[in-house]
């Protein structure tokens, strides 16, 4: 609802990005702070629609109009609560979600949509900054034990809900760190890993146990889990990339994103990698196929990034989104070959 006439008074405004000259020197997130007054004005643009398309357009059904209004009214604490009612980790979605809500926003029919995603992120960051988001261990324990296999967003959300319902929860992760895609699939500048750690800390405070390097079914027999736990949640996710079976696919230098991103994230986390498997783009021309979340900023050396280093990036017309035809892909492959 915000302000009844808010959408007529205020225009859409997003926080500005840090200057490129600064950004190329680090891997931190790119948006600058946004003054509270401005954000509240953005919240005021929400029309509190009778049929909020944003709300049904949201994959987790965030009750967007409600928290837009709370932000407008400066009722931050309540906004934090309202936001968490449908979403365990708004600090992740507020950064990396493609925001179908904004595409569905009713205001978007004839004006720029409400900056829903930025509002979401700001609410949750305010929650952390104020210390409102802290461990909320359950008051009663059921005594039941649950194993969650996989520590990606789904596994973590399941773990948190189950823990809060009073069960003892242990999360198993085959990788060396907890977080799944959040940890290794999302580049640092989109989601700084401290954001993830902050949430894991809360969960530990609530009583969730995390076990990494435990590959269930391989290094850890399923039977062990069956013996120890009352229930098991499988939240392993899919690790199958979508391959492009086109001529030239077999050429060297063609990688799936998930071959590259974990390496890069590890570098950012200060790990030393086996140089043999390095995928580095320093001084190279790079073509990126796919307009999703990996299309991001292009990789360079790490750590620490040096000024001027990195690969030149150009948006290929097709890459901006939409379907790629076989022909256009062939053209791309051709370009790569050269």
């Amino acid at each position, binding site marked *: 609802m915000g302000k*009844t006439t808010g959408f007529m008074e205020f225009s859409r405004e997003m926080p500005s990005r840090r200057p490129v000259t600064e950004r190329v020197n680090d891997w931190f997130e790119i948006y600058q702070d946004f003054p509270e007054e401005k954000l509240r004005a953005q919240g005021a643009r929400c029309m509190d629609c009778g*049929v909020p398309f944003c709300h*049904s357009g949201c994959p987790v059904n965030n009750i967007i109009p409600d928290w837009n209004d709370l932000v407008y009214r400066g009722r931050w604490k309540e906004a934090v609560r309202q936001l968490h009612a449908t979403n365990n980790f708004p600090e992740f979605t507020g950064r990396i979600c493609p925001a179908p809500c904004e595409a569905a926003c009713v205001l978007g029919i004839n004006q720029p949509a409400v900056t829903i995603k930025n509002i979401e992120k700001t609410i949750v960051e305010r929650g952390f900054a104020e210390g409102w988001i802290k461990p909320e261990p359950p008051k009663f324990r059921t005594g039941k034990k649950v194993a969650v296999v996989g520590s990606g967003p789904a596994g973590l959300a399941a773990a948190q809900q189950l823990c809060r319902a009073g069960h003892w929860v242990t999360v198993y992760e085959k990788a060396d760190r907890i977080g799944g895609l959040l940890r290794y699939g999302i580049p640092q500048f989109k989601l700084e890993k401290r954001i993830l750690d902050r949430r894991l800390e809360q969960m530990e405070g609530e009583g969730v146990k995390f076990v990494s390097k435990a590959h269930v079914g391989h290094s850890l027999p399923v039977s062990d889990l069956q013996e120890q736990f009352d229930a098991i949640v499988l939240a392993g996710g899919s690790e199958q990339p979508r391959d492009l079976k086109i001529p030239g696919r077999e050429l060297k230098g063609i990688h799936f994103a998930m071959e590259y991103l974990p390496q890069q994230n590890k570098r950012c986390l200060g790990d030393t990698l086996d140089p043999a498997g390095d995928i580095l783009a320093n001084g190279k021309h790079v073509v990126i196929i796919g307009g999703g979340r990996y299309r991001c900023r292009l990789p360079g050396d790490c750590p620490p990034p040096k000024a001027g280093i990195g690969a030149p990036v150009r948006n290929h017309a097709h890459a901006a989104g939409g379907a790629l035809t076989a022909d256009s892909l062939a053209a791309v492959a051709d370009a790569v070959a050269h």
Partner: protein
Amino acid sequence: MKRCSTMNGLPPAQGLYDPAYEHDACGMGFVASIRGHKSHDIIQKGIQVLINLTHRGACGCDPETGDGAGILIQIPHRFFEKECASLRIKLPKPGQYAVGMTFLPVEKHQRLQCEGILESVVKEEGLKVLGWRDTPVNGDAIGRVARQSQPYIQQIFIGLPKGVQMDEDAFERKLYVVRKRAEREVRESEIEDREMFYIPSLSARTIVYKGLLLAPQIANFYGELSDPDVTSALCLVHQRFSTNTFPSWQLAHPYRYVAHNGEINTLKGNVAWMHARQSILSSPLFGDDIKKLFPIIAPGGSDSANFDNAVELLFQAGRSIPHVMAMLIPEAWSGNPHMKTSKRAFYEYHCSLMEPWDGPAAIAFTDGRVIGATLDRNGLRPGRYVVTHDGLVVAASEVGVLDVPPEKVKSKGRLQPGKMFLVDTVAGRIISDKEIKQQLASRQPYAQWLKEKQIKIEKLPEPARVHGGDHATILIRQRAFGYTDEDIRMILEPMAKQGEEPVGSMGTDTPLACLSDKPQPLFNYFKQLFAQVTNPPIDPIREEMVMSLISYIGTERNILEETADNCHTLRLEHPILTNRDLEKLRRISTGDLLATTLPALFRAADGEAGLKRALDELCRQASLAVKSGYTLLILSDRGVDKDYAPIPSLLALAAVHNLLVREETRTQVALIIESGEPREVMHFALLIGYGASSINPYLAIETFEDLAARGYLPDGISAEVAIKKFIKAINKGLLKTFSKMGISTLQSYRGAQVFEAIGLNQDLVEAYFAGTTSRLEGVGLDVLAREAQMKHEHAFRPVSEFDTELSVGGQYHFRVDGEFHLLNPLTISKLQHSVREGSFKTFQEYADLIDDQSRNLATLRSLMKIQKSDEPVPIEEVEPAKEIVKRFNTGAMSFGSISKEAHETLAIAMNRIGGKSNTGEGGEDEDRYKPDANGDWRRSAVKQVASARFGVTANYLVNAEELQIKMAQGAKPGEGGQLPGHKVDEVIARLRHSTPGVGLISPPPHHDIYSIEDLAQLIYDLKNVNPQARIAVKLVSEIGVGTVAAGVSKAHADVVLISGDSGGTGASPLSSIKHAGIPWELGLAETQQVLLLNDLRSRIKVQTDGKLMTGRDVAIAALLGAEEFGFATVPLVTMGCIMLRKCHLNTCSVGIATQDPELRAKFAGTPEHVINFFFFIAEQVRQYMAQMGFRTVDEMVGRVDMLDVQPAVDHWKARGIDLSAILYNPPVPSRVARCCVQAQDHGLQNALDHRLIQYAYPALENREPVEMSFQIRNVHRTVGAMLSGEIARRYGSEGLPDDTIRVHLKGSAGQSFGAFLAKGVTLALEGDANDYAGKGLSGGRLVISVPKKAGFAPEENIIVGNVVLYGATSGEAFFNGVAGERFAVRNSGATAVVEGVGDHGCEYMTKGVVVVLGSCGRNFAAGMSGGIAYVFDERREFTEERCNLASVDLEPVIEAEDVELVKGLVARHHELTGSKRAKAVLDNWQEMLPSFIKVFPHEFKRVLGVPRATHAYIPGQPLPHVAELEQVTHG
């Protein structure tokens, strides 16, 4: 109640028809000799009066059979002596014998049995039967239907046995006992035709001749009425207009004491309370006989009959008849600070005795010695009287019913709200209201009694301890009581901020409570009833003075006694108790008052059994508490915990109430609700409607405390303020809810049960809600227990802090986990895509989503199945879509509520396909009347006539194919509306004939329709202006709508529209959107059934609307009986509406429901979108028709046999629903048509206007001036309207040059004199006129002057009736006398001079000038927002007593401009009417000028930039210096 006889006449309840909902209204009157001189002349005059009131009655399918007429006279002794002599019956002296008129079964054996019973009762009661006389009647004088049901009519003569002495009053009492006993014994006998037995009168003083007659038939039918020996000093007459056409001889008036014009809205409650009181009735006058009178209210009677029963008891038990009237229909005393203390005390005392019988009522009454009439507190029926110099009084619903030469007239008056007019024929004089009331008030020291015995809550000692809030558990309890996020955000918070109910828009599209998957509060299963047509809703804001929330709690005592103890009650100013108030009551120990608290909780885990057990236990405890002497029972659900859930508060209340009624102890205690559940207006209304005295909503109160503690209330609103505002909002909402039903006091509303339940089963209703209608079966105690359990489980489910605190709700706005909505993101986008792409396939997908509600049941039609015929027809043979779309209409949405672009797009689309668009109530720009150059036409075919009459001029009316009278609107039936000043721009102001920036109010009622015969009058008015247009009447579904529709058909409407409850709105209180009215399926089916039973369907078209969304909806509507279909919400969606539900805020982001130019620019709808939609719908209808084997829509109308119940429904709630009442097909012969096959006879051929037009021909054709003269009578109605239509057709709103057509008239003009009179016409009448003169005046001039021969003073006598100049837009009117109630109501441009007005003068006026040269009634200028009135206040009473200062300033007339204007108008008045009053004022102008007060509306001042005055001007007091006039900021 089974009724089958031909005489009682009404068919038994069947399908959706229930005889309990029959209505009637009528014309009534009396003639009396003041000195009690008996003559035959009085009777002849009475019959003449009756004949001249014929147009107020009606006839049904048989034009020769009326709805009933009758007369009551004194016993004509000379005649009976003569007659009886020939029968060898010797009559004693007058007064020593009684005559009983009896209706008996025709079949001889049964008749003898009835006679036998009556005779034996007479003997057992110690009286003597003198003999019987066959009353000679002429069966040929009456209609076919009446003849078929005619009873055998005899007179019985009863005297005293030898040696028995009895005074006249004792004799009358004995006769009363005899009649009541005989009625009961016959009723309880086995006699087959026992229902035909009826005693119209049995008295030694009066006799009633009545029957199923038309007025002119009565003298021929009862031949003896023409015998010169039949004499009387008084004659009471009545002509009935009933909604039904079922032959009923008994329901004709007069009854034994009264004839009634109007309707008792609170009847159910009144009857129930009368019944509950029986156990404590006692009177020394009756002794043990009192029990023989039970039931006091005889079953099967109409509201008037029941009222007569109550009058009779109170009268026979010793009160005078005026006393009884003042007790049952009191004046509005609580809101009148100027009433004398002793009189107030009289009323207040009697209010603590019994609740008023509330509703519009003009009642003529007599005990055979005094005769008089009284009017309800709000003056909602007309009543006029003339007193002659030779001692004759003629009173009637209209003036002019009897020719009285002007020189013989001593005075002319009208019945005034709450006032009595009384003739005492024994004392030989007229007794003024003032004298009667003074006499009554001084009967007993009422004021002192009240002072000594009445308790006020403020005076009770402070409680030692008050419940505080418990923040730790509030969330759990909110959940247990089913609070949702929306309740807090959209209901409670707004009430705390604004002190009033929140407003919403666009209707509702969520499931009925009985179909919803979500647990519902029990409240949601009920729907509010509301007044339409047969009685008016009230405006609780502008007419607040008649409303009251005061209630009295405590033990009721014997109402037949007058003692101080009768007012030993606790007086509450309103029904909401704070925690402190409640503790005061809990600990009360004053007098007889003693309270106890009973727990209303049940063990959640035990489900239905637990709930049942808890209810039984609660009842047992209540019963015990009453026996132990407790007088206040507090039903409390405090103490909810993990084991115990609250019993739904309404259920707990109803259980106890019903039990105590059965145990006949209900009136000994007051029931008080202490509950966490009630939180919105509807909840409180239901609790009161089912008998609660007061309510402590502790959890709502705590919620505010909690919100405040958490800092969630806006600045400046503390918990205390919030609670105060909440209580204020609830109270205002309650008044609004009462007023929708036309009820003005809480006392009358309490227990009146004016609700219909949807989807509760009979077991539940009978056990707990006896008397409430629930027609579809459905949910029982098991489901209610389950719902309570669901909430309880939710409450105590362990939750983390980050869970949603409360359920999301989703009742008002769509939410993914909330309540289901038919219009949701998916359906809206599919629909919009389909019409934009022209894709029938996508439309089909949309329709499938709506139609297939098997997973989400939402509507009654979702439970229905359209059958397939064994003989389908090929689709090519089905009527083409382009024919079907002609049956489609778009809904009434005013230009004002939606933008010009949207309004015109709809009009263009409908004109292109031959359907009809509707103007709504905001007028229409005249540049739309001619087609555009490209062939498109922006004119709306349907012109709406709504309560505010915005833009309704003669020219508007002639530019229409259909004129639709909006009686109610689905989203807010029974309510008015308001267009705030900021929305009124130049164009809207021009079209609505008002001033830009000035707010506009639509009153809740049409002020010219307070009853069914008034509606007939408006239909006649409109038909006169535009004889080619169809006249449609829009009703909203509720129980009894079918009966109203039957009345509408008899009132000669061409179309009746049955709207559903879910239709859209531009702005309406949320509780109205959600809780008033019922789905169209029920209303439409009922309408079809009742019209068929009456054989009235053939002459009226039936239309339906209310969220029709797909072809399936249309097909079902047709099968249920509709032949035309309306759509509003969905066409808006096709034009881009995305259900923002912000219409009321002017912020529609797609340019539809807004006047903001920037937003309007974003409108992207096109006529093609709309057209595509209608063709898609038609195409779908064709598919269904093919499947059912129908080639034309007409074949399909009313074929309910093609509908079946959806077999696959197995829903936990819906499985109990039984649709057989909706799918009922009344067994009528095939000659009874199921759709409209003939035109109405509007009776225009007798209109005087035919002659006017004939004489005006040169003026009409060549603008040549013409002049003509006629005599006029009250039967000449709507004079001038047809002529005005002719002028408008030729010359548009320009009309003719001033005075082109001059018409001189002499006599008493009928109703609607000069209605819609066009510019260029002057009607100059010497005589007087009835109600609605100058209605919709469109530029013409009305002059009414007192005949030169008249001897009375015009400024003290009435010259024109009620509701004069209603909705006038321009023109002039000069009245040489006093006008009735509501003079110049909603005037938007006429100039008028009058010499005095009744109550509510210039109400809702928005423009124009009114000069009142005399005294005003109360509440002048209520809701006036524009124009100026000048009042000549000689008596210095206007400022403080008569004017409603809420929206106007009162100033002296000092500006030269004002002085000139007033002087000019007074001079003109004198010139045109010869007014002596005007002359006297002019002659002493300088002295008189200070007595003039200028009534200047605030809003108008704001627009003009004139500062607000700080003081109200009182003539004769020193003027505040101009410098003291402070600049007030306008908000």
